[in-house]
């Protein structure tokens, strides 16, 4: 169901990594880490989708596969109706202008030997989009102003070591914005930042979304952050979507036992709120050699007869709210 309002359509996307086992491994059957194992969802134009889950649930691999930074095992990703896995290098290079990635750690992303001017303008130079040095300069300045680094001319001459973490992350955002993208995939963009600065960057991101009509895919382990930025929430567990739906719907009435546990465990910054926590047995297993049943079965408290037999598929339980569980 790809309509004009869908900017990105992810269809049964899989990314399996082959496990290196040893010298004579060719004799044995190969085993795989099924980091992303059959994920489908649509991203509406102008929407803000948060993908959340614990470490190792495949959220980062999903982002990297969507951008085709790694080749998928199977499945398709349609960007404005075109399958990005069938694109040639030239088409892909054009696509990369439209889909930008923001990483978690701005300290590692930005080359310390370049000035902010070079760092922010780099994308334009690489894609040969700067007609003259003046145009380049003006566009860098306006990108810096967009991310509220004012006076922009002053910031443009600095090096990354002269800036704070929050400012660096804003420069990383400016680097993306200067290419006028449609879609920004942000992988834990504020997790490295301190609380007071984190809010500033999150507010900036929500404001920019409205100003520039951007679409966001926001990847995080923190549901409180996800709720602050996103309007649609996808909960992943071991490479698959456990539940997805409108943000407030999922946060307030989670249907999947995993989501219920996850939401009940998010700490709340208020000592007077008392809640019941749902504790899960054990820790998240690794997605290697998973049995052909519900992958949450081992930790689930609501196991029924079906759960042991077949992997549950996503079903719509209320408008646009999907759950992969038999209990519902």
């Amino acid at each position, binding site marked *: 169901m790809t309509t004009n309002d869908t900017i990105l359509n992810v269809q049964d996307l899989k990314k399996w990594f082959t496990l290196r086992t040893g010298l004579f491994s060719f004799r044995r059957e190969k085993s795989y880490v099924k980091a992303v194992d059959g994920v489908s969802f649509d991203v509406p134009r102008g929407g803000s989708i948060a993908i959340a889950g*614990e*470490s190792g649930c495949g959220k980062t691999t999903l982002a990297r596969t969507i951008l085709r930074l790694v080749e998928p095992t199977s499945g398709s990703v349609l960007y404005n109706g075109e399958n990005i896995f069938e694109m040639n290098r030239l088409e892909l290079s054009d696509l990369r202008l439209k889909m930008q990635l923001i990483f978690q750690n701005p300290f590692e992303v930005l080359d310390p030997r370049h000035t902010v001017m070079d760092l922010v303008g780099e994308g334009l130079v690489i894609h040969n989009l700067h007609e003259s040095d003046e145009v380049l300069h003006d566009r860098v300045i306006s990108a810096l102003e967009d991310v509220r680094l004012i006076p922009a001319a002053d910031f443009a001459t600095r090096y990354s070591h002269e800036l*704070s973490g*929050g400012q660096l992350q804003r420069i990383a955002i400016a680097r993306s914005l200067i290419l006028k993208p449609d879609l920004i995939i942000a992988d834990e963009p504020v997790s490295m930042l*301190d*609380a*007071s*600065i*984190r*809010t*500033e960057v*999150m*507010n900036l991101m929500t404001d920019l979304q409205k100003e520039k009509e951007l679409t966001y895919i926001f990847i995080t*382990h923190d*549901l*409180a*952050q996800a*709720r*602050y930025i996103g309007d649609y929430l996808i909960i992943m567990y071991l490479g698959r979507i456990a539940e997805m739906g409108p943000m*407030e719907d999922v*946060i307030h009435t989670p249907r999947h036992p995993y989501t219920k*546990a*996850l*939401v009940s*465990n*998010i*700490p*709340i*910054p*208020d*000592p*007077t*709120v008392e*809640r019941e*926590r749902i*504790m*899960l047995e054990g*820790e*998240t297993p690794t997605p290697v050699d998973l049995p052909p049943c519900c992958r949450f079965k081992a930790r689930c408290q609501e196991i029924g007869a079906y759960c042991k037999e077949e992997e549950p598929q996503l079903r719509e339980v209320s408008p646009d709210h999907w759950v992969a569980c038999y209990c519902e």
Partner: protein
Amino acid sequence: MAVLEVKDLATYYYLGGKELKAVDGVTFNIESKRTLGLAGESGCGKTTTAYSIMRILAENGKIARGSIRLGGVELTELSDEEMRQTRWKKASIVFQYAMNAFNPVLRIGRQIVEVIREKDEMSEEEAVLTVSTLFDEVGLKPERQVDYPHEFSGGMLQRAIIAQALACDPQLIIADEPVTALDVIVQNKILDLLRKLQDKYNLAVLFITHDLSVVAENCHDVGIMYAGNLVEVGDATSVFKNSLHPYSNKLIGAFPSVVGPKKRLEFIPGAPPNLMNLPTGCRFHPRCPFAQSICKDVVPEFEEITSGHYAKCHFAGELDLGGEQ
């Protein structure tokens, strides 16, 4: 009597002849069975406070003034040898990255036995038995003490570290960001465990974290630090609901929540000051929306405003910070 009494502690680092005032005037007490959550942003001095108490500062760090009394003993005056005897037996510390706290080439049980035998007169067999009991206590299978660190998951390692911290029966445990690297569900299990052990062994806990949500759910008392100063301390409900210091108020307001209505959060403009080049007067004044001229010139006193609730602000108790009074 309080287990730990820290009074006007100041710890400076010396960098190329210059003084960096990492901790400057920190005063708090912790009683047994109580947890004090020490929170603040990176570089505010919370870890340096912990390291000062344990006296495990880097070589260029010195306790410049103040007193640290643990069970009535003044730690700043102990000799290095006496201090060595105090660590683990009276006070132990749990670090953030459990992965790095264990030696990767030695069995985990072995490493805990080593601590016990170093500190207590105990035979090898007795020590191994003690480790089994400890493992059971923290929810690990005793037979897993022969495993190496890489065979444990993050949560299990954190449990093993807690077992090690308890090994010599201390009065005080300092937990420096003990759960920050863990997923939320595991995080809460570890925190529940810590609370259970605290009640059982009458421990005083100094809990250091940058995450106020975790503090709100797990600590009896809260201390907020900013640029080396302790700006506010009191019981959790008072600090969260009736903050006295504008910084605590703003910091608490910057945390998103999964309950309640979704609202736009506030942030604090600017960044914390450079500790080598501190502003005059109140260290928060350049970022404070309530700053008056006195804030620029005079360093505010750390005063008790309401019973057990202290703040370091000229206008503490007079500002309308939107509390629920």
